[in-house]
């Protein structure tokens, strides 16, 4: 479970997150969406302990982020937008390093590495340096590294980007399995169709504030536009309606 209460983050006077309160329930896949610069990455960076919040309280699995960041890190798996890989290692060495950091028993670790590489079709490339991998291969390896220690929380910034449809399906299956085993998964994505289709719950952040939160199954039927009183047809409609100013919606290129 992730609990964020009154979280704010300022960068040189610029308010990136403003008094954000959010609860991500246990055993769920939570979609966290918003336009560019809305504060998604800042939230993820705070949750991973990369940056410190200016104000507010953040708790993951009951641990306070400020006091127990090492304990939290032991229990989370992360994929960032800029992939967190050591490119001077081979794929196999990278997984071994991650396993060693999380103190996985040697025999279990070797078994998991073999199985994971095989699952993601990386066995033939296991001895190659990561710097020679394609973007898709890197993404799969980053995903494998994030899950190899069976974390209780997965924080994933754009996990499906640059991945082929087969691997995308595999990643989704794995995430479902994690959720069913009791893990909490937070996903950011620009693909609203995918979020709506795959996540249990979704929150939209705009200019550092949560402007919408709902279970995805309720979106089409229950949520109505406040002015027109019409039911939204998709998450995309809600997203555009809540994050775009009226005048911006009407903007066009006059010379075209």
């Amino acid at each position, binding site marked *: 479970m992730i609990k964020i209460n009154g979280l704010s983050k300022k*960068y*040189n006077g*610029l308010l*990136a997150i403003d008094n954000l309160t959010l609860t991500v329930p246990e055993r769920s896949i939570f979609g966290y969406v918003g336009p560019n610069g809305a504060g998604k990455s800042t939230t993820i*960076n705070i949750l*991973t*302990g*990369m*940056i*410190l919040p200016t104000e507010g309280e953040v708790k993951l699995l009951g641990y306070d982020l400020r006091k127990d960041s*090492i*304990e939290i*890190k*032991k229990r989370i798996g*992360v994929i*960032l937008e*800029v992939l*967190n*890989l*050591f*490119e*001077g*290692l*081979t794929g196999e*060495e990278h997984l*071994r*390093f*991650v396993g*060693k*950091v*999380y103190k996985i028993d040697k025999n279990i670790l070797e078994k998991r590495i073999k199985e994971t590489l095989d699952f993601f079709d990386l066995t033939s490339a296991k001895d190659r*340096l990561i*710097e020679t991998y*394609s973007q898709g291969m890197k993404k799969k390896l980053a995903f494998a590294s994030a899950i190899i220690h069976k974390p209780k929380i997965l924080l994933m910034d754009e996990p499906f980007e640059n991945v082929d449809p087969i691997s995308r399906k595999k990643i989704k299956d794995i995430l479902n399995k994690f959720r069913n085993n009791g893990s909490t998964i937070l996903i950011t994505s620009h693909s609203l169709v995918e979020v709506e289709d795959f996540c249990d719950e979704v929150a939209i952040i705009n200019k550092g504030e949560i402007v919408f939160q709902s279970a995805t199954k309720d979106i089409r039927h229950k949520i109505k536009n406040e002015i027109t009183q019409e039911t939204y047809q998709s998450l995309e409609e809600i997203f555009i309606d809540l994050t775009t100013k009226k005048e911006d919606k009407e903007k066009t290129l006059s010379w075209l």
Partner: protein
Amino acid sequence: MLSIFYLYWRILYNEYRKRFFSKSTLFGAALIIFLTIFSVGFGFALGFLVSYTRLHPELNAGDPFYGIRLVFLQMIGSVILLKVTYNARTFKQLNLNTLRLFPVTKSTIFLFDINIGFIDLISLYLMEFLIGLIAGAGGFSISIYTAIVFLIFCFSLVYFVHIISELFQSIIKLFSYLPKIRTTIVVLLTLILLYFVAIEKLTWEIVINNNPLSWNVSSIFSLTIFHQNHWIFEIILLNIIFSIIGLVFIISIKIIHANLFSAHILKKTQEVKKAKIQLSRLISFFPEKLQLYVEKDIKYLFRSSRSLTAIIMEVMLLVFVGYMYFTHGKYYNSIYLPVAFVITFPVLIWDFFLSNIWGLEKQGFGFYMYSNVNFNALVISKNISFLFVRLPVILLISVVLSTLFSFEYFPVIILLYLILNFTLLMFSNIVSVRNPYPVDFKESSFSKRQQRSFSLLGFIGLMIYLILPAAILFILYKLGTGLVFYSIMSVILILLFIFYKKMVSYASSLLYKQKENIYKKLIKT
């Protein structure tokens, strides 16, 4: 701890394997052999200088080894300066952001990072190797026991130098996030320095004689000259203690920096100061087709830390030449010429190296790729900007040197510099175009380079660059200044100019081909 060790070890192993089991192995080995022979010879030459000073105490009355100590300190200073500015590491990719995601404490990360940086091969192990050899050469000339003690001593000194460099580097990085504090501290330090110089009568000699590095240097002399090694163990111990204290400081600063970094993550990192932009606008007397490129290159010069180091080193050289003239000019023919050589040599090498890594800037690469770019103008503008940086210092050094010797040599020095620079640019145009690297800015161009191979052309260029002035000086020594000498120099210069023009057009066509090749590679990926 063990997992971080595993990480570092594997990256180091892969890096070595990649470099040493490649096509460039032979050239790499040749380079190391050359440097080994060179540094051993260098060590003995310095030993000879020490003996010479000992036999002629009147040269430096009161402090017989002042000059030679200065040489050593300048060398160590150059190493520190290079280590601080030359921010390339095998482990640069182990940036804080990646490791911080794992449950590892910051102090563990930094402890490993600093210590593994000591054996990092990319940047300066050759410099460390050099110091070791110099000391080793001195030590081996006495006895095996002394040599072993000397090597241990050297190791501790090099580690200490490494720690000092790391300390400076971490302070600079910390300050870059704290502009207000940086200004305050610089002002405070200047005031403190002024206080000591003006009121406490602090002299250069006092500074030279009273610092841990000087104690190290003095112990080299007490061992090599007087065969006394009774206090070298204390120096070793002192180096270790200072290193540990330094280590604690660095880790603390890096932790503060890491926390601050998280607070300033959105800060614009590529700010160009207005003054610098205005400076480039002042230079508007080039032909129109060149102007655009020259302006851009000059801006980049000031943004690149490496080009700034060239300026710093040349200023250092200028300060030293000036110092030598105004204070101890009377000894120039016995001590200061070798000293000037020792200082000039790394400056020349650095300039050469630097000019060769000035390739295409990453940010402008898309521009080259898709726009109608004049490649000839692009290459010439790089050369102009390079000369622009060097010109004021070159002129000043020429004036000071000709005042020191005789104004008869002023045209010789100017011609020599022109010859040197034409040689340098001729080769660097080709070498840098062959391997278009990004200009460094905040990220290291080295870490972006996938396969950095030894360049035979660059090596030949370096040799010609070093041998040519030596040959000219030899001719000068034999013939003196006169019609014959100037004729020879003029012919060399004209030939170089013709070659330079040809090389520029060759470099332009090569650059065009490179652009095509990179474009094809990009399409494939």
